[in-house]
């Protein structure tokens, strides 16, 4: 095999701080190369350099054996390098088909023809997405599919996937892996970043591990084990802390007061006559496949969505029937929802860590005069930065400049300052590295230990098993199974979610 892409002593600085430093990287033709590392290790920076988003501060990049300088992502795409970003970059007001063929339009476009063409193309990838649907109406999983389809459509010779499977269901993942194998057989080289180490071990030919902006290990996949990857990532073994024993090595927390009682809740065809309870001092795990209505149910509880006006059921919070039209009264009553889509709903990306955390107290109405002291905000930010180990190059850095894991920690801090009675985490560790996962899990456990009612929605079964005292499984808009955290197993949960 010959190298299609090579980096030599690649360095990228931000305000004088190196995000990656002296990185040597080789990608062979027709190879699937996994890049793993903690959040902030430099994975995204590295791949953005390859995709033309950033330019190198020092070092050299060679493509097909020739040195190149990529001016922009469009330049990279023209040379055959396509990137599927972690946070989707689709145009929300356009349809799926229009997004796939964006930048590839003809002078005269017949929409019907475009939709038929897109439908065939999506089906050939085993992606069941309506080409006529507006992207804004799609869930995170479907958006990811459209993003992947767009990259495949451009017939790139090198494709870079940043966390491609985070939002896919197991079945969609299976199809996606098959697609990657097919692309590899066609001679396409693939780089993919994943926090799911099992995927890297299963799918890739070679793994490169980054730590603190440097390559800490790079080898053929067959020479790696899960523990060796983790050690290379964090410098210590986290196997015992991460998903240890599926949560069965500790006694489950006893039931506290019934905090939330959902009775026959309905919202169109998404949430269908569902009923369940949530208790204080416990972590209630909420599992379901895409379309099971778990996120929508929790968004109704927290006032983001509205249940059916008639026959929409009852929501009782602390014995009181409630119907929130906006999140604000829910926050004031003590319900906080930590979103799964942090980029869109979680934070203000151009504001600092302190300003974002301070905004949590504004939403709660702790400061009725809305007089914001930035000095207080900075003190608060410092406390939460230490408590949640938020790592930023600069304390005044904008959120957009933080890695995914640190962004997530800021979103959690912003919610936790509201002193809720019940906190709902929707995919709390999506796109988060193993080190941060341990820290976030520890924090979630701390909240439950203080007597708070905690709900964790997750698509990742080991996470559900590790955290939950009690597990609820949703299917087709309603709760179909309740399990004890001690006795639940992955096959049992998945069986309930599918059948």
């Amino acid at each position, binding site marked *: 095999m010959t190298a299609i892409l090579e980096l030599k002593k690649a360095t990228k600085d931000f305000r004088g701080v190196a995000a990656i430093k002296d990185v040597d990287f080789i990608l062979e033709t027709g190879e699937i190369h996994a890049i793993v590392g903690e959040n902030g290790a430099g994975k995204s920076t590295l791949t953005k350099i390859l995709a033309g988003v950033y330019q190198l501060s020092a070092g050299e990049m060679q493509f097909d054996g020739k040195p190149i300088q990529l001016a922009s992502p469009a330049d990279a795409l023209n040379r055959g390098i396509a990137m599927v970003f972690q946070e989707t970059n689709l145009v929300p007001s356009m349809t799926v088909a229009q997004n796939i063929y964006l930048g590839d339009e003809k002078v005269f476009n017949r929409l019907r023809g475009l939709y038929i063409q897109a439908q065939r193309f999506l089906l050939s990838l085993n992606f069941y997405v309506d080409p006529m649907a507006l992207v804004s109406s799609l869930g995170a999983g479907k958006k990811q599919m459209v993003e992947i389809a767009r990259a495949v459509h451009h017939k790139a010779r090198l494709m870079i996937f940043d966390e491609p499977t985070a939002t896919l269901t197991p079945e969609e993942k299976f199809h996606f892996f098959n697609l990657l194998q097919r692309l590899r057989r066609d001679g396409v080289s693939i780089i993919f970043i994943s926090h799911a180490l099992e995927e890297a071990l299963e799918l890739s030919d070679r793994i490169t591990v980054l730590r603190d902006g440097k390559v800490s290990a790079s080898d053929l996949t067959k020479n790696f084990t899960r523990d060796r990857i983790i050690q290379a990532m964090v410098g210590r073994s986290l196997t015992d802390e991460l998903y240890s024993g599926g949560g069965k090595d500790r006694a489950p927390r006893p*039931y506290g007061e*019934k905090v939330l009682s959902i*009775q026959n809740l309905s919202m169109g065809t998404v949430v269908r006559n569902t*009923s369940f309870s949530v208790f204080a001092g416990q972590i209630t795990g909420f599992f379901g496949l895409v379309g099971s209505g778990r996120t929508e149910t929790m968004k109704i509880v927290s006032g983001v969505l509205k249940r059916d006006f*008639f026959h929409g059921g*009852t929501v009782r919070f602390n*014995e009181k029937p409630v119907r929130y039209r906006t999140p604000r009264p829910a926050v004031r009553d003590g319900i906080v929802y930590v979103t799964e889509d942090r980029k869109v709903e979680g934070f203000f990306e151009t504001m600092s860590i302190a300003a974002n955390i301070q905004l949590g107290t504004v939403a709660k109405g702790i400061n009725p005069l809305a007089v914001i002291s930035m000095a207080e905000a900075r003190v608060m930010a410092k406390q939460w930065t230490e408590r949640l180990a938020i790592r930023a190059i600069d304390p005044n850095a904008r959120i957009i400049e933080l890695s995914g894991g640190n962004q997530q920690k800021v979103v959690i801090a912003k919610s936790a300052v509201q002193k809720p009675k019940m906190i709902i985490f929707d995919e709390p560790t999506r796109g988060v590295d193993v080190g941060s996962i341990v820290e976030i899990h520890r924090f979630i456990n701390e909240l439950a230990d203080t007597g708070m009612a905690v709900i964790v929605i997750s698509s990742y079964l080991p996470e559900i098993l590790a955290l939950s005292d009690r597990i609820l499984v949703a299917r087709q808009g309603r709760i179909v199974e309740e399990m004890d955290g001690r006795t639940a197993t992955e096959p049992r949960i998945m069986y309930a979610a599918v059948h």
Partner: protein
Amino acid sequence: MIGALKAFYAGFRGFDEVGSTVPMMDGPLKPNTALDDAQVLLKLPAVDNLTAPAGGLVCSQGTGLLRLHTSGYGLTAAVDRTFTSDITCLAADPAGALAIGLDGRGVVIQGGRHDRVHIKDADGEILRAPTAALFLDSDTLIVANGSAEFTMADWKRDLMNRRSSGSIWRVALGSQARDATPLARNLAFPYGLAPGSGGTVLASEAWRHRVVTLDASTLTVPRAVLSDLPAYPARIATAAGGGYWLALFAPRNQLVEFVLREEAYRRRMVSDIDPAYWIAPAFSSGASFLEPIQGGARKKLNMLKPWSPSWSYGLVVRCDAAMRPLASCHSRAGGNIHGVSSLVDVGGALLVGAKGSGAIVRLEDGVRL
């Protein structure tokens, strides 16, 4: 028009305009078959009021007061005394007295210092349905009068007429006039009593699906300690290991909740139909084809689906000292231990009296939690 405005207001304020939702049996109330799996000690139709006076065990069956004796792995019953009315409640005093509630006729004391005392009324209110009694000491009896209008035998009428005329009284047995002090009024069928902490009494309020706490000496506003129950609570028993056991005799379901809000329908049902066939909770069900059904497909291959809606159910809940549910034992729709009305924690085991199914079962320590 008014109906539409009401519906709009209900939606605006956040409560279900039909009001027919019921809470889920989940968490500590997650269904199981522990009651059906438990050892049956005695089959005794209409058994009620299991009580453990000093060194013994008694219960009631209609008008008869029965003493229970161990026999091998089970129990045998012998009639101790017969009354002219059904026995509605029993309470034992460690000093040897037994308070016996009689349907429509108040409470009589048997044994002890106040033997043969008959309390027919409390401060002028006839104790028509003495559903529960509790000795605070040998001279002080707490009595729950389930309804001021209906007898215990007519409990369904009290529910279907949406009455809340129940009350709880503190009766001074030592005084000549048997002075009675009201502790709570306007209760919706108080059905169980237990001693609380710090001079309080716990009472189950069946039609409001809750357990409340009251001051044991004076009239106070009841405060809910356990509410929004998915079934109708009956007796409360003190658990040997601390905390309480709560018996629930019938499940709530959406159809009953709906009927309870349909004035005209309910009025005609009450006036025209035999109570046994009302759309209402019951101690037992499934014996007659005349019973109303709640939707089809309740049976498959002649097996009643355990999750199907039923008029009766068996449920015992273990609660902590603050009356928070910890665990529960069930007999589901297809089960055989329905209509649990009384409990007694004695000799390291919990004896459960299922009035509906007519059985006394024993829950061992391992099964209980």
